[in-house]
Structure formats: C-alpha cells, structure tokens
C-alpha cells in the first residue's frame, strides 16, 4: 500500500503524538478540514484539542509561545500554513530560538519545530508563494529540513521534533500527490541526517531539495533515456549544510547543476556552487557548475506568467543537455 506525502506527514504527527507525551502542535488551521491539506486531518479529534491547538491570527505570539513551551520540557510543533505568514515570526525563529542555546552558553535546549508549508502556484501571487529556504539556511543554530519524499516527510518530521535543536521543517504542497510504500517508522537522529544520493550516474550531478529534488529525479529519468546518467543528490538538510556528498559527486561527474525553487541571488544554489568551488580542483571539473532557480522577481498570478516562472523538468533537462554538451564551454 502506498501513502502520499501529505498523509505521510500526518503519520509522522500521529506517531509523535501517540508515542511522545511531550509533543503538542499549535498553529492556525489545526481544527479546520482544509487549511493544511490532508497533512493533519482529524488529529484534533484523535488527540484532543489540548494537544492540537488552533490559534488566533498571531504568528509571532504563537511561535514565541511554542518556543516557551519548548524551554519547559515540551516538544511543540508550531504550524504556519504558509511560509509567507511565518515571516511575521522571524524574530522568534531567528533571533530567539536559533540563538537560545548559544547565547545561554550551550546550557539549555530549545527543541521547537517550526513547520511551514510552501504553497505556490494556483495564481496566488507574490504574497502567497514564497519559500525562502535560503534565508533560513543562512541562520546558525537553526536546522533546516526539506523532505522530498513521503518517507522523508514522515521520518524527518519525527527526527526534527526529537532533535534538541530548533528546526524549521518545510514541506511543499506540490509534493502532496507523491506516493510511495512507507517502511516502518524509525526514530532517527537529525544530527546524523544530511544530503543523500538518490540515483547514481557518471555524467552529471543534479542537486536539489524538496520539490526541486523531485524535479531532479524526473529530469534524471528523462536524461537517462537520452543516454546521460546522473548522480541525483537530495539535500534534505539545508542547515547545518554538509557539502561533502556533493563534493564527492562533483569530483566524480565533473559537472553539477544546482536546482533550487527559491530566488537566485544569495540562494541555496549559490551555496552549493561556492561549496564545490572551495573544495574541488577545477581541473577535475568537465564544466563549470550551473544553477537553475526562480528568476529574481516576485511571483506573478497570471497563469501564463506562472508557467514561465517556476523551473520545470523540461527546463532542467535542457540545461543539463547544454552542460553535458559543453565539453568545451564558451564564455563571452
């Protein structure tokens, strides 16, 4: 039996709430039938509204409250149904939670999990489409997790909540349709999780996270049909960022395409490239690494513009072919 990405998230919540009395979840939409897709359906009736708490429209207050409970022995998961709404809570995430351990000398833990949903497309426009993983990956002290498969959606949620550090867990509504057979749940140590090689090949390395990792896998399948074999690396944990697997793969294939569904300037794709450049002898590279990102523009609404705004499998394949073809690239 297969399970979808949204349902797998719900499995993660169910496991946590059933097995860890210190876990509770709080945020907007938790008593709603539709607000967070099918990822938390009926948790409130299953575990009670004392542990599955819907809230006023107060992102900053709610996030701060979750942090407070985390300092008192609980493992709260605060829910932001959109990344955009979460930006009102940046102070509590970035200036409070992420720094709490360090600024108190490493003596106390702040095991809050902030779950925010990337919810793009559908002509929702500029204020309802941000993902911003590059922002949060930039913040020391904050672990940033982006699952791209149902299994990871479930198991990395569990690992996030059980981590003693604050974690930002980002899931993407575009992945909710993805189905797979789920292995039994295993409690993993988030500090041991990181990028993973999900396909191997000699010609090119495709790197992405979340929905971009999914696009990379699809692109790799298409490229394989063209005789081009890819390493595909799913970043999974963006911060603290461990580039070693990417570096190893870059040395092997000599070509890297970094794909990210966030903006370009100072984005995660830039980090992937910089990390490679710092560690890989350029002479082993067969082409310079390249990135595929959003253009540096706010999201539009109009459907034709939306279609050219988001990276697609087609576009990745096209860029990959160019990169592989460019045995000798031309630079102006």
């Amino acid at each position: 039996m297969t399970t979808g990405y949204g349902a797998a998230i719900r499995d993660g919540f169910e496991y946590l709430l059933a097995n860890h009395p210190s876990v509770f979840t709080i945020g907007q939409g938790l008593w709603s039938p539709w607000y967070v897709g099918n990822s938390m359906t009926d948790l409130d009736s299953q575990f009670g509204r004392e542990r599955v708490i819907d809230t006023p429209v107060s992102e900053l207050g709610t996030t701060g409250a979750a942090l407070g409970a985390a300092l008192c022995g609980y493992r709260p998961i605060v829910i932001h149904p959109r990344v955009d709404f979460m930006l009102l809570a940046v102070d509590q995430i970035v200036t409070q939670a992420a720094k709490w351990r360090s600024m108190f000398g490493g003596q106390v833990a702040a095991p809050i999990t902030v779950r925010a949903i990337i919810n793009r497309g559908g002509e929702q426009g500029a204020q309802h489409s941000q993902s911003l993983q590059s922002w949060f990956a930039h913040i020391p002290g904050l672990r940033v997790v982006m699952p791209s498969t149902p299994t990871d959606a479930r198991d990395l949620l569990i690992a996030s909540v059980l981590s003693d550090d604050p974690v930002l867990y980002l899931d993407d509504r575009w992945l909710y349709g993805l189905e797979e057979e789920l292995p039994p749940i295993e409690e993993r140590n988030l500090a041991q999780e990181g990028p993973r090689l999900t396909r191997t090949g000699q010609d090119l390395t495709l790197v992405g996270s979340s929905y971009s990792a999914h696009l990379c896998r699809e692109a790799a399948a298409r490229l394989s049909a063209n005789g081009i074999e890819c390493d595909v690396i799913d970043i999974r944990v963006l911060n603290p960022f461990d580039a070693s697997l990417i570096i190893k793969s870059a040395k092997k294939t000599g070509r890297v395409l970094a794909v990210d569904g966030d903006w370009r300037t100072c984005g995660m794709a830039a980090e992937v490239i910089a990390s490679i450049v710092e560690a890989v002898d350029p002479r082993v590279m067969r082409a310079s690494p390249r990135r595929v990102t959003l253009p540096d523009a706010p999201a539009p609404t109009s459907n034709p513009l939306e279609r050219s705004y988001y990276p697609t499998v087609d576009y990745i394949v096209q860029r990959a072919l160019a990169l592989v073809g460019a045995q000798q690239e031309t630079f102006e």
Partner: protein
Amino acid sequence: MRASVESALYETASSLGNLADAERYHEPISVDAADSDALLSGLERMILIRVVEEKIGDMVSQGVVKCPCHLAIGQEAPAVGVAGYVKKGDRVFGAHRSHGHFLALGGSPHGLLAEVQGKDTGVSRGMGGSMHLIDIENNLFGTVPIVGATIPIAVGAGIAAKMDGNGGMAVSFFGDGATEEGAFHESMNLAAVMKAPVLFVCENNFFSSHLHIALRQPDTSVCRYAEAHRVGWARADGNDLAAVRAVTKEAVDAIRAGEGPRFLELVTYRWRGHVGHREDEDVGVKRKDDLTRWKLRDPISRLAVALESLGVLDRPQLKRFWTDAHTVVDEAWNIATHDGYPPAKALLSRVYSGTMARKT
C-alpha cells in the same frame, strides 16, 4: 486595599449583545427620508457588488477563475456605507476580501473581472488577481492578503494626509481576525499618539477562516481595543446601510476636523465560505444554523423594503437595478475573457523602476 492600588477582573463575554444574535435585525432597516438619495444609490451599488461576486463565484465553481477569491456576499453594506464618505484625495486600503471595497469606491467591473482572470487589462495588469486590487483614481490604494498588513500602511497614509494638511484621511478595512495581529495594535497606538486622520473599519463577521471569534478572543466585540488605544469608536449593525452611514459620517467629520483616528466595528456575516464559491456550511461553530438566519439580515433586501415603504423605490426600479447589474457584469466579463495576458517580459520589467530584474 491601600490607596495606591487599583484593580479589576473580567469574565469571558460577548459584548456584542443583540448584534451577535442571528435571530435579530431581520426587519427592514429604519431610514431617514433626508438620506434617501444616498441610500438609493447605495442600494444600487450593493446590488452591483452582489452580482459581480456571484458571477465570480460561478466562474470559480466552473474552474474558469483560478486565483483564490474571498467573496463578501452578505457584507456589502460596510463597503458601500463607508465609501459614501470617501472624498477625492482620501486613501483607502483593503485586504483579501475586497471586491466590495473596490466596487463601492467606483471601481470598474471590467477591471476586476479581467484581473481575476489574470489579464493584462486587469486593475493590477494581471499581476495580482483577486487579492491585490488597486484603483488610484477611485482612491483605492491597495488591497493585499497578508492579514493586518495594510493597517499600518493606512496609518502611514493618514500621516501623509496630515502632512498634506487638506482634510484628507486614510481608511483601513480589515476583519475581526486582523485584530489578533500585533500590527493592528501597533497601528492603533501609532495613529492615536500621532493623531493621524485614519478611519479604522473592522468588519466583524465572527470568523477568521474556519474559526469563530469566541475561540480566538476572550470577547466577541473588538471595540475594547479602540478603548484601550484611546481611539473613539462606534459599533453598528453592519448589514444596515443607514446605520453604517450614520456612524461613518460622525467618525469622518471628527477625523476631518483634526481630532485624530476613529474606529468602527461593523457587525456582519459572510454568506460564502472563507475562500471560493461554496457556502461551507459544515465549517465553524453553528455556521449552518446561523447562515440561514443571517441571510434574513440581508443588507440589500432590508434596505429595499425600507425604501419601498418610504416611497422612493418601486418594484420595477428595483428590478432594473438587478437587470442592469447583470447586463453590466456579463458585458464586462465577456470583454475581459477576450483580453490578452501580460507579456512574458512583465515578469522582470515590473519589479524595479528603470532596471530589469535578474533572470534565472
């Protein structure tokens, strides 16, 4: 206790009283003959809004309109009542549920219907959809869907109006849910301390998405916040255009006289779900029961009957209001359907003044 000590206690309560009771205020509203011209044109405008929103609802249900649409069907009176006191030079801001605000201020149905289809002829040139409306000529300076976001922006427009010094004001429309955002409180304090000419209009429709105000706040009326921030307030039946006009007039007169901000709580109810065309009867506290009764507090029919009794409206004219609205809306829709989409370069050319944005 000692002289230096004072204290007080509270119980969770519903200060809204009768206004919260869906059984009440079903009767025709009481109207003043002196105001009948304005009420008549207000009725016509409310009917136009209703028809436009029903059209949009239908197109959403058919999958033709794809952007998220938050319909204000049933909530037409606050928009129209307040708009009646907006003058050239004022600046009005709305939120996610602002079709009514846009149309009440005189916005073009075609501009709205093109925008919800993502057309280049839309009011935001296809870059905003239902949730981002603008119409500078008609004093609408912007509506956006981040809850509470336009409240401080409206305060800034009020500061600008004060600097302009010609009696202009800013108007901020928002819902009961927005009063839970810190931005709302910061804005009220700032406006109060700077005596900025701002009319805060809270349309209290009891719900933020699926959640009833009784589950989000310790009291159902939000005027207590105005009290706290020392902003003069009034609360009225938001489905009674005459009442809305009366409280608005008093507030706007004070604002234009330099007395600083004012706050209105207009109690109303939305007939459709939070987003989309459905009625969402199964969502939220008592919604199904209440909806039926709230439909009897219809701002349009209660006003129409009152104007008929007053003798300033007859059946044929009322019918004409509806048929005219349908004609206007159908025509606007058809034109918009044939309009073009924004050009591909719009993505990068509309980000900065005089600089193209960086491509992928």
